[in-house]
């Protein structure tokens, strides 16, 4: 086993263990930390695949933006009790059915992966650096320009949608669960 492969297995194990923790933890904050661990391990896998640019974007977008948004939401909602976790898991038949279905799905995908090892053709050496910025930039701005611009429109639509979803109607009461403390309302004024 080469050192590269050993490192890959280490980070792959870390990513899967983090994913299991996301599902199994009772407290959403613990799940978020496990998800952060998974994101960092996946970024390390990208580097080992020779795509450092994507690893950086993974850290910035997933760990930096999405996860901060998730943690911010958890803090904002100020949930009193963690809520039901995986406790009394085996007493719900539909959850056992879900476990069976997902085991089947995972097993099928793993079987396909195992088949792909035998079936995949050798690489044709199209590009040198898989994820270096120059190659990626040429691909995006020459072949994928229209989807790239459409992505910008999608993000704009998402911003507008998020703002209009969370905006409080005029005269509505203070957000539930945040009645005490020194929170400010939507206009930044003290209640």
């Amino acid at each position: 086993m080469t050192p590269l492969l050993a490192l890959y297995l280490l980070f792959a194990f870390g990513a899967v263990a983090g994913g299991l923790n996301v599902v199994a933890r009772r407290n959403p904050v613990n799940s978020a930390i496990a998800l952060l661990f998974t994101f960092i391990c996946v970024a390390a896998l990208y580097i080992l695949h020779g795509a450092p640019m994507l690893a950086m974007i993974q850290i910035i977008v997933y760990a930096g933006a999405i996860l901060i948004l998730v943690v911010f939401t958890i803090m904002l909602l100020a949930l009193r009790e963690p809520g039901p976790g995986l406790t009394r898991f085996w007493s719900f038949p539909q959850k056992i059915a879900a476990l069976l279905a997902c085991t089947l799905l995972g097993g099928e995908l793993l079987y396909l992966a195992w088949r792909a090892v035998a079936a995949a053709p050798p690489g044709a050496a199209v590009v040198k650096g898989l994820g270096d910025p120059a190659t990626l930039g040429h691909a995006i701005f020459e072949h994928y320009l229209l989807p790239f611009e459409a992505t910008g429109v999608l993000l704009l639509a998402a911003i507008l949608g998020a703002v209009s979803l969370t905006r409080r109607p005029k005269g509505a009461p203070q957000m539930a669960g945040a009645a005490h403390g020194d929170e400010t309302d939507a206009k930044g004024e003290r209640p």
Partner: protein
Amino acid sequence: MIPVGFPLAVGALLFAIGAFGVLVRRNAIIVFMCIELMLNGVNVTFIGLSDRLRSVDGPVFVLFIMAVAAAEAAVGLAIVISLYRRKESVNLGDFDSMKG
């Protein structure tokens, strides 16, 4: 060079774990995080296959998936906040007014 089976296996496991979480957890925020986990599994698969085939299309698609995930995060968490405002809960079992 890393054999192509490894990234495919990691992607398969992440996707299956995420799907399991989406099906069994009732906390909307954790369901949301499990969806991110599934997207990451897909991304690992894309990178592994494009490393094997030496094609730059995989990383470009991963970039697009990340943009969609960011948009989904913004809208999804906004929905969670407005659901919480309505019922003071993020338990998905409490939201049954459509009798689904």
